[in-house]
Structure formats: C-alpha cells, structure tokens
C-alpha cells in the first residue's frame, strides 16, 4: 500500500472507532453538541484527505 492508500483509511478509522470517544453531548463546541461538532470536523477532514489522495495518486498526473 502506498501513502495515499494509507491516508484514505484515516476517515474510516476516525468514523468507526472515533464514535466510541466522541459520543457525548458535553462539552459544547461553538454552541454545537460535541458529537455533532466532531462529525462536522470529520467531514471537513475527509474532504481534505481525499484532496491529498487526489494530489498524491500518480493516476491523476497529466
């Protein structure tokens, strides 16, 4: 597995195992319940990861 493959496993790990730590209402983050704030952060991170994967993957070189 190359670096960009490893990177893509990150969203899976954080989503599936992360729930066990993030499943709480308190503390509120910017007024949002912790669980919700964590998932929004996770979505943004997933998007960033997939952008990196796109840049790193040699298949996308012109």
């Amino acid at each position, binding site marked *: 597995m190359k670096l960009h493959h490893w990177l*893509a496993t990150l*969203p*899976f790990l954080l*989503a*599936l195992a992360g*729930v*066990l730590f993030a*499943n*709480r*209402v308190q503390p*509120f983050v*910017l*007024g*949002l*319940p*912790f*669980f*919700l704030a964590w*998932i*929004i952060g*996770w*979505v*943004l991170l*997933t*998007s*960033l*990861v*997939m*952008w990196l*994967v*796109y840049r790193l*993957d040699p*298949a*996308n070189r012109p």
Partner: protein
Amino acid sequence: MNSALLIILLTLGFILYLGVRARRGIQMDFEQWSVGGRGFSGLLVFVLIAGELYTTFTLLGASGFAYGNGGPALYVIVYTCLAFVLSYWLLPAIWRFAKQHGVLTQPEFFAKAYGSPALGLIVAAVALVALVPYLVLQFKGLGIIVELTSYGSLSPVAAIWIGGIAMAVYVNLSGMHGSAATAVVKDALVLAVCVFLGLYLPIHHHGGLGDMFARIESAHPGFLALPATGKSEAWFISTVALSALGMYLWPHAFSATFTAKEERSFRRNAAVMPLYALVMLFSMLAGFAAVLEVPGLKGGQIDLALLTLSIRTFDPWVVGVIGAAGMLTALVPGSIMLISASTLLARDLYRPLRPGSGDMHLARVSRVGTLLLMLVAVALTIFGGSSIVSLLLTGFSIVTQLAPALWSVVARRPFANAHGVMAGILVGEAFVAATVFGGLTLAKLLPGAPSWVHDLNIGIVGLGLNVAAMLLVTALSRWRSPAGASALSPRADA
C-alpha cells in the same frame, strides 16, 4: 389557487420544459437515452451521483430522523462520506469495465464480469425488487409534500398522478439528458432551501444554534448523542459500515456512473462530495428546531416535522418554494430510477426472452417500460399496503447483498466465480427475507449475548453468510471442475 400552489405548478412547468428541451441536438439512440452517451462532464456526473442522493429523504427523512431520534440521525452523513471515499477507487473500476464492454445496466455488468447470463437474471430481479419500492417512496413523498405545502388544495393522489405523468413525459423524450438538465436546477434549489431552513428556523425560534441545542439538552438530556441501548454506538458503527458498502449498489446509482466521459471525474469529485454531504446537516438542524416547537409527532409522522414547522413559520410563497424544492427531490431522482429500471427491464429481462432483438427495438421496449413502471409505481403508491413499507426499510439490505460480487470483480485477483456469487446472493437475500417477513432479530438468534450485540445491524450477519456461501461454493466448483472454473472466473473476457 394560493400562491404556494402557483409556485409549485410553475416550477413543475419549468422542469418539464427543461427536461424535454434537453433532447435538442442529440441523436437519441439507446446509449444516449439511458446513460447520456457516456459523455457527461465532471460537473454533470457530480450532480447525478452526489445529487441523486438528495431525494425526498434529504428534506423529509433526514429532518424527521433528527426530530425523532436526535444524535443517531448523523449516521446518514457519515456513511455517505465513507461511500464517497470508496467511490474514489470503486467508480473508476466500474466505469472502465462498463465502457469496455458497452454495459448499460447493473445486471449486465455482473453477467459480463462473471460470464454468466443466469447471474444477470438474478441481479435484475434483486435490482427491481429494491428499485420499485424506492420509486414508490419518492411518489409517496411527493404526495405528502405537495398536499401540505399547497395547504391541501391539491390532493396527494392528484399530485402523484401529475408528477408521475410529467416524469414519464420527459424521461421518454430525453432520457438521462433530461434527468441531468433537471438535476442541476434541483440541486441548486434544494441546497438553497436546506441551508436557509437549517439556519433560519433555529435562529427564528430559539435565537441561534447554540441556544437551540442548549434548550434541547436541558429538556431531553443525551438526545443529541447516541443512546446506551437501541440506536447505540454498536448500531451506529455497524449501520454506517453496511450502508457505506451498499450505497453504490443501488442500481440507479451504479448505472449513473456509466454517464461519465472520463474516469478522472470520479476521483476529482471524491474530495468535494463530502462537503456536499453537509447539506443534509442543515436539513437535520431544521428537524432539531422542530423538537421543542412541534412536539408530539410519532411514528411515520416524524417525517412531517420540517414541513409542519415551516408552514407555521412562513408566508405561503416561502412554503411554495419549499414545496417546489420538495417536489424536485422526488421527481429528479425518481426519473433516474425510472430510466435504470426500464433499461434493465428491456436489456436484462426482455432480451433473454426475445434473443436477437435489435437496439432500436430494445430502446422502444424500454420506453414502453417507463410508462409501465410509472403506472405500477403510482398504483402501488396509491393502493399499496404496509408490505411495501417493510420492503422499503430493507431496500438497503437487499442491494448490499450484491457488494461481495462487486468486490471480487474490482479486486486485483478475483476470489469468486459465478457459482459462488449466485449462491452468496441467494443466501444473503434469503436471510434478508427472513428478517423482514419472519421477524428474525439478533435478540432471537443470540438471546444470551450482551446488549451491544443485539444493537448491531442484522445486515452484518446476512453479509457474513453471503461471503461464506460465496467462498465455499467457489472453492467447491473449482475443485470439481478446475478447467471449467477458469472460464467462469471474473474478467475471463476482459
């Protein structure tokens, strides 16, 4: 006629015009009609593949789930994003094979990948059993949305007929080109409506998002996270994993990938699509805003939370715009389902009965098929009983049973042959049927297990049995006829 109904009808007229106009300048052969001639740009593919997920569920279901269940509703966003991550590798592989072999439907994909027409028939049956109820769900949603947002001046039955006929007209004339043209408008409108409702409703009724969540937490402590039992962490993880694996196996999502012009579109879209999933969050915020404002909705009524609160809050013309957006979330994804269902009806069920039918003939058959399917779906919507609802609930489990067959095709080395895959699908679907019609649950299967085991999504067991049967039968058939096995193995004709 009130202003809301006027806006809804004008929007319908506009969409019909756009959908019909989309055929201009196109020599409409079967491939053009069903997959847009495999010539769509990255943006159109994005709208078709990401936007197609924004069905009536986004507006009614996601907000209703948040209203009724709280924190667990977020599973929708998580599985969608994970499916988008998978799409980076999955969709280019599907697209490449489909283009090489001129594949137009999901059953055809599997039949060719495994060199087995019988497998094609099985997948076609599975696809129809999953798709038709999903289409019915769109019509049901359409009826509810139009009735409520037109303040009852249009009955659900009338709304379903008008919507169904409009859809059949532009699908018949323009096929996938019509769906693509209307999908762009739908996405823009739904996006705007969702974001507006998700921010305005909490601010208007609670003074802001933070105040709203603080009030919900003090009224219902823990509602905004996952509960200890029921829709618990075990439920969340297993349901997210299963749904992420199953999402692209919906036949219409699968064949929407065939419309792309180049495979790079999928990889580029994979980074943007997770952000798009956040739109559902706004719909959930609107659902949360309803928790304290319109309490007491139970059972199927929770899906009405967003509309009920909106009607109480806004002037009729705003309600009309919401209703128009809701109508499009039913019509546009519905049209894509209609195209893929009728294409597979013609190519995978009709063609085997009438071998030697030409493309022109099949194209005509599939257009007649759209009318037929539309009538069946409308009839089931209006007269259907509760059995359809139970099928709907398991639509995801039904299509997820096709996942192992797909993995073996896209894997570097195939690990299953046609016999194994057929056995796996049949065992998996039989298990799904036992849970739906036989009321089989994990609590009944394993009464002594800890409660987190009972919370697991039972589809995991079905998928496990599926994979076991697939590997076992593959091994047995290779052992019995090692020479024949190679001819049956995937990519034998690639």
